[in-house]
């Protein structure tokens, strides 16, 4: 079956998992690993270019496990990990560099500061020998001691905790502990930095404050960083590059804006807060005009014909739409008589019809729950049971709402601009 408009990467169509082609260029981290932990199977393949890459996924997606595999803390069953062109792991060639030789610093979710050492002692632990770390000479020679103290002070300034040398981990707040852990990680002069949910242990106000700091510190250090998070807002605020992980698979990958704008699968769309995911009943080729898509609710729309790829026969599809980008228009009673929409959809856009079922005041915006019309009742009952198929959520500002002058029970057209609606592969049960 040929499809237009959407650019699916071929690798998401089957159950074989994501295995993107190794791109040219040696900068950054490239991961293609396969490992099992109990009943969980991780099959992740992605690249992390220099800069900050967010590994985004719901809990249980395998994010932390991926990070541990990169750090060398958990063995990989098969696959390869290369950092700036150097193979750290390659099961085919029998390469498995131990964690201590990878020069990849790892900051776990709990920060794992050494509670028996002072802040200075914690940071000194990571220092290379020539800076007085990890050697008896470093503690004996006064010249080494001075060099070490200087470097520790430098790192503490970088994380904005000057003068904290003598404190103990028990005397630090969550935010301070996090920055000390960051300083310790950077002390080792790592080639890459891994952060596991760096902000999740902090309370909300601290998190906001630390987020910008974190970004600035990482940018100043210039170390390529992979950060694990389940929070889309956190990924948005921090990352340049995004890798979305669901259930052990990479479901989307790319620059932040690009990835968020083009989820290839329904799980990725959900992860990227595309609130509306409507199952597609079938798709057929129109006579030159494009692709005719029928939702399980029975509503139809046409996508312009720009055939770019194949989707395997039988692949289940869904229409994903961003709630915050939908436009709601009133339909007057008489315009309903001919089933043609009075207002044509935006070029390349999608227009659906329904009835406002509920309006929730969320403060800055109103959340509308719209029950879709059902021109043909009960097309795919099973699909409907699997997903909430008959409803669309749209957000509108209080001013828009006032202009529309609508109320619950009103008939509306929902218009989605081309970049706020996509066909995605349904990869969820």
């Amino acid at each position, binding site marked *: 079956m040929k499809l237009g408009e959407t650019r699916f990467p071929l690798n998401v169509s089957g159950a074989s998992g994501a295995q993107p082609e190794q791109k040219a260029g040696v900068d950054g981290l490239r991961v293609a690993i396969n490992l099992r932990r109990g009943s969980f199977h991780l099959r992740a393949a992605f690249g992390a270019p220099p800069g900050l890459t967010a590994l985004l996924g719901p809990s249980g997606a395998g994010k932390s496990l991926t990070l*541990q595999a990169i750090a*060398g803390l958990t063995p990989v069953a098969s696959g390869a990990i290369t950092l700036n062109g150097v193979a750290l792991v390659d099961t085919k060639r029998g390469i498995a560099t131990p964690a*201590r030789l990878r020069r990849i610093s790892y900051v*776990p979710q*709990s920060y794992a*500061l050494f*509670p028996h050492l002072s802040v200075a002692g914690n940071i000194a632990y990571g220092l290379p020998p020539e800076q007085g770390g990890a050697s008896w000479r470093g503690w004996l020679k006064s010249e080494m001691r001075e060099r070490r103290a200087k470097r520790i002070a430098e790192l503490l300034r970088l994380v904005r905790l000057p003068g904290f040398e003598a404190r103990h*981990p*028990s005397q630090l707040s969550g935010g301070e502990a996090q920055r000390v852990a960051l300083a310790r990680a950077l002390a*080792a002069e790592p080639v890459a930095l891994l952060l596991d949910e760096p902000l999740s242990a902090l309370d909300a106000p601290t998190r906001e404050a630390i987020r910008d700091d974190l970004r600035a510190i990482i940018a100043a250090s210039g170390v390529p960083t992979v950060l694990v998070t389940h929070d889309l807002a956190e990924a948005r605020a921090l990352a340049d590059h995004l890798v979305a992980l669901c259930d052990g698979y990479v479901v989307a990958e790319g620059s932040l804006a690009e990835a968020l704008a083009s989820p290839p699968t329904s799980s990725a769309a959900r992860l990227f807060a595309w609130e509306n995911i409507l199952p597609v009943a079938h798709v057929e080729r129109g006579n030159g005009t494009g692709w005719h898509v029928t939702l399980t609710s029975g509503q139809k729309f046409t996508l312009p014909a720009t055939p770019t790829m194949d989707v395997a026969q039988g692949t289940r599809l869904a229409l994903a739409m961003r709630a915050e980008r939908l436009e709601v228009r009133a339909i007057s009673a008489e315009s309903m008589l001919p089933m043609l929409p009075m207002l044509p959809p935006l070029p390349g856009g999608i227009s659906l019809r329904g009835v406002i079922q509920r309006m929730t005041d969320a403060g800055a915006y109103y959340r509308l729950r719209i029950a879709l019309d059902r021109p043909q009742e009960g097309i795919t009952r099973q699909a409907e049971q699997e997903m909430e198929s008959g409803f669309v959520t749209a957000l509108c500002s209080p001013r828009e709402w006032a202009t529309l002058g609508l109320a619950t029970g009103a008939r509306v057209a929902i218009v989605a601009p081309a970049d706020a609606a996509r066909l995605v592969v349904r990869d969820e049960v």
Partner: protein
Amino acid sequence: MALKPARRPPEAGVITLGLLATLALAYLAAPLVNLLFAEPWRDVPATLSDPLAIGALETSLASATISTLVIALGAIPLAYALSRWRFPLRWLATLLVYIPLVFPAVVSGIIQLLLYGPYGLIGAPFAANGHELDTTFTGVVLAQTFVAAPFAIVAARAAFEAVPTATEAVAMTLGATRWRVFWTVSLPQASGGVVAGLILTWLRALGEFGATAVLAYHPYTLPVYIYVQLTGLGTPAALPLALLSLAASVVAIALAQLVTARSRIPGVGAPDTAGGRL
């Protein structure tokens, strides 16, 4: 308006628990308190001038200390291995550790005598060269080591299990070898529990009677000498020695309390690791 805390009588359950706890404490304290009033005190100076008693005390202190050092050398790595590594027959190793605890000490002595005695697999070659392992100071150390080792292993294992593996993982990513991680991250964090376990071990070795009496009746340790005096001359002769033994134990217990109280390192980082009090 401030609310006054309601003054309520304690719950019946609390009273019951408190009563039972008090009874248990009284049960443990009664013989000791009784001893203090049993007027063996006037015999203490005489006991201290008894060369056999002093010799027994010296033997006990020296052998318990050496046993504890020997145990530390093996128990700490064994406890670490049991807490961190997955290896075949690990369950059996765990079981073995508890065997000296559940065996009657006399039985521990007998099975050791079979091995280290003049006709034993290990004892025979030594005996042939004139170095008997039984009925020597070495025999005392062997007996005490066997019986007291579980205390060190169990305590150290619990201490290592309480060390967050994340700290060890971080240390490795910072370039530390496993050897360095053990000495600089794992052991320092476990040190409180390990030391407390070793003090208990020392106490157990000091008080060891059953296995020692079987494997090495001579040279007398303090418990064996107390038994000898008791069976030969009766309670009056044994009581001053009992006081001596008691004094050594009390000092060691106080020391153990001090060490464990000092070593409590508060949790770091994640707020969910913070413990609460009821």
